[in-house]
């Protein structure tokens, strides 16, 4: 039953990704703390520098593009804390990643229950 083929549209967050994304995920982990969220919002560039993000990670954060964050090693559980700062739900994040409107993405979810 096992099948080792890649799964389309899915990045397995493994050791290689965990190393690649460490700084980005560490920054997002810091957003559990309200003072850190406020410090980030006050000066995003300085905050990213403090956590040592590379340029690809910084640009993905500036652009708020989740697929780019994932490509740069971001893990969705930590990225969700970044999204939360801007009041984005997992439907907003899902819509952005699939190139759909949020309404269309929500409808897609509803249709799978019918």
């Amino acid at each position, binding site marked *: 039953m096992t099948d080792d083929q890649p799964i389309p549209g899915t990045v397995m967050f493994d050791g290689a990704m965990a190393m690649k994304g460490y700084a980005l995920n560490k920054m997002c982990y810091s957003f559990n703390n309200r003072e850190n969220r406020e410090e980030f919002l006050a000066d995003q560039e300085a905050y990213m520098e403090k956590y040592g993000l590379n340029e690809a990670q910084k640009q993905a954060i500036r652009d708020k593009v989740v697929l780019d964050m994932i490509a740069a090693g971001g893990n969705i559980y930590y990225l969700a*804390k970044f999204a939360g700062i801007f009041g984005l739900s997992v439907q907003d994040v899902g819509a952005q990643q699939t190139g759909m409107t949020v309404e269309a993405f929500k409808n897609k979810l509803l249709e799978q229950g019918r």
Partner: protein
Amino acid sequence: MATVVGGLTTSHIPAIGGAIAKDLFQDPYWKPFFDGYPPARDWLARVKPDVAVVIYNDHGLNFFLDKQPTFAMGAAAEYRNEDEGWGIPTIPAFRGDPKFSWHLINSMVADEFDLVTCQEMAVDHGFTVPMQLFWPDYTYTQVATVPLCVNTVQHPLPSPRRCYRMGQALGRAIRSYPEDLKVVILGTGGLSHQLDGQRAGFINKAFDTLCMDKIADDPEYFLDMSIPDLVREAGAQGAEFILWLAMRGALGDRVTERHRNYHIPISNTAAGLICLESVA
């Protein structure tokens, strides 16, 4: 001696915590989900567990990638809920039973499951939402809790077989405790969902139905699946089904299904609830 009275599974989606805080029980979107829970609470009122062992995954509250244990157990007198960063209100602390936790740790490590032990442990929605669903209105302090955290954040995740066997070791550990405690096992998370990548929004009703149909009487059906198999069938975060298998392993050979509910969607997830009673 301690006994396992049965097991409960439930999804642990963070939005549920928000909906509970806003009393959305009768809201048309939420009603089909929340209406599934009263029969499970009635069952709990009948079997009266003293302790809940909660098998869940941390989503970046207690653990970060600097130290990511595969299996970790709490051994504290209380477990605090803390800010997860995106606004679900924090709730009062949960009660622990360190003496029972240490018995489980000693027994399971002797049984070859080398748990990380935590004398301080913050619990996130993976733990708090199921506790609130089964013990509403902050009544959850009527049971002691033992958090058992399984890594689903970073691959390699423990396989379905490994988790099922870990559950079996947990069951043996509970049954060897000399005090007359009644223990319920919560397997949280699932069912199918995927939050990340172009495949976000993936839900697989057929596979979820198979999970719910087989978890009581044929859980071993899933044990040859790999984690990639599970990700393919259930979605990247649907791999949390390993937590259901761990729960099932602890219940012993025979169980009776008392109740189930299944609803698509809550947030991005197919929500599954099942109530299994152990048959002595």
